[in-house]
């Protein structure tokens, strides 16, 4: 792909994970204890942790496994099966571009090329300033008004190159809400 990749602007995905801060560790344990007795608790636990921290710290896997009486391998298997879950912290914002057919029919292939060029990253990468992580998504259900983009919990329709740049620019000005 003819995407210009400035290596210095890309943060390596595996250069992460320091030990968890005590507050995060408490939050993980609290979440596990709150949900572990739900039927089929693993997905709800993973969602709750990722909603709060932005990712699932690999160091939390043994605690989750123990609480659910599973092996760490089983938990890791689930975590890696679903595209939604991530083991590394994302950038300040996760931007998803819909790659599915209905959006393709109205120009999403050009949009994704443009987005990669504009941000200087490929899918699954984060800009060096840690602002944006770019991810693909397969359908946001906005198929009559594509191409569609999701930023956080907001879905935006009819996104062309120009609109994409506006959205990214607006992100830089937005304070991050605390969940």
């Amino acid at each position: 792909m003819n995407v210009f990749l400035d290596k210095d602007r890309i943060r390596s995905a595996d250069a992460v994970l320091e030990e968890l801060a005590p507050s995060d560790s408490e939050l993980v344990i609290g979440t596990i204890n709150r949900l572990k007795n739900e039927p089929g608790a693993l997905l709800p636990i993973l969602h709750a942790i990722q909603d709060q921290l932005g990712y699932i710290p690999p160091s939390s896997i043994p605690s989750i496994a123990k609480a659910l009486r599973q092996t760490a391998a089983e938990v890791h298997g689930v975590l890696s099966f679903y595209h939604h879950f991530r083991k590394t912290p994302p950038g300040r914002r996760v931007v998803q571009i819909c790659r599915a057919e209905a959006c393709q029919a109205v120009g999403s292939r050009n949009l994704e090329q443009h987005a990669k060029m504009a941000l200087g990253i490929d899918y699954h990468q984060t800009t060096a300033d840690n602002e944006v992580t770019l991810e693909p998504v397969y359908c946001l259900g906005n198929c009559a008004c594509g191409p569609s983009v999701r930023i956080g919990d907001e879905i935006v329709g009819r996104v062309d190159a120009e609109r994409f740049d506006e959205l990214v620019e607006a992100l830089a000005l937005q304070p991050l809400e605390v969940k």
Partner: protein
Amino acid sequence: MAAKVFIPRDTTAQALGANQLAEQLAFEACQRQIPLEIVRNGSRGMFWLEPLVEVETAKGRVAYGPVTLSAIPELLDQGLLEGRKEHPLCLGLTEEIPYLKNQQRLTFARAGIIDPVSLADYRQHGGFIGFEKALKLSGQEIVDLVKKSGIRGRGGAAFPAGVKWQTVRDAQGKGPRVQKYVVCNADEGDSGSFADRLVMEADPFMLIEGMAITGLAVGATQGYIYLRSEYPVAAKILDEAIDIAYANGYLGTNIGGSGKAFELEVRLGAEAYICGEETSLLESLEGKRGLVRAKPPLPAIEGLFGQPTVVNNVLTLAAVPYVLAEGAEAYAGKGMGRSRGTMPFQLAGNIKQGGLVELAFGPTLRTLLFDYGGGSLSGRPIRAVQVGGPLGTYLPEKQWDTPLDYEAFAEAGAVLGHGGVVAFDDSVDMAEQARFAMEFCAVESCGKCTPCRIGSVRGVEVIDKVRADQNRDANLILLQDLCDTMRDGSMCAMGGMTPNPVVSALQHFAEDFQRSNSTNQPTISGESRHA
């Protein structure tokens, strides 16, 4: 009296600026000291007109759309709040817009009319009548009604719902504590489909009512809505509606004062297309990887946590209150052949008037594309139409006169699936679309069956070679062979139907595979589970 204005809060309306519009209109009205009530309704499903603003008048609601922020002052100047028709954005009475007027709305009768989280609105528009009737019937009588209505699963497989329910009702279950379940498949992953989303965002109580009736019918006391995480708006609206239903006794330990219990909870998926397959969905609900299970045992006998489970699509469950309220005959009276009732078709992709079109089975694709859709958005000729999601066939123009019903489509070698219709204009490269079908399968395969897991990766490679003119003829034969292997050697529809778009592209758009494409190919852009 304050003017009453409706601005939708569904995903598409929000994606086109409805929230900002509602805020701005409230602000502008406040500045002018005009009393104003803004209702955040669901969408009418005329998505090209979103954000669609409606104003209540004595003659009915008057529509304006698509309304931009900058148009608000002049709209107010020109009598928006009185429903006056001077402004060019005025569309007249909403109900008289032909796109809407010509539909046969049954499942979507309330969509866009009510506030989705107003119980009073829902009841006022016929909500919970079916539920109240169901409370007076035995479980078997409810199952019999559903059988008689002829309703078939709307998720794609079109299995008769009543037969499935009977199996669950009759199942003995396992272990000392038998717990039957009702699971709603809301993992609407098919591109071009948004009917489930619209039910959940525009009329969520209908789904809740349908699930409670199902619970009464089969003797299940626990329900789950397995919702894809790509639908944050639906998740929020459903959660609000479920809380209200609990607070008003429609869910809980004593539903409708019957002494019977039905608990309901939303569970989020996590971006895995395969979890729309029912056994994979059940695995996911159990907290596991979404690996497809072998059938038998059927989920109706050994489903969630090994217990008898009804798994139905949103649209199937949402049609149930109507069957109870209006009678099985009223439902069965619509449609053609063995395809009874109505089907919400979804017009998407490169189409001028995209949206939801609910009709009795039987219209042709051409009617949908041109009478409703108004042709392509780009203004260029439509060349290919994919029906039924990413595993659906690409239909060339000569097949557009096929009537839209399950059997006629099967005869044409296509699937109706969930009713999504995605139009492409003549700029489409069908070899690229075929490649994408394989790529999508490589990214989304659960990995259980080798033809699906490996075949899809090989499929991408073979199509790349064809497009680069490397041994083209031999590779085209190989591709056909690979498609046969995937179709015959995969357990579920993911591997089994991925050949549909590929083979139909080969068959009907062969010229696209003869072009030389010398540019570098992108690699698989998603994250394969098996890399």
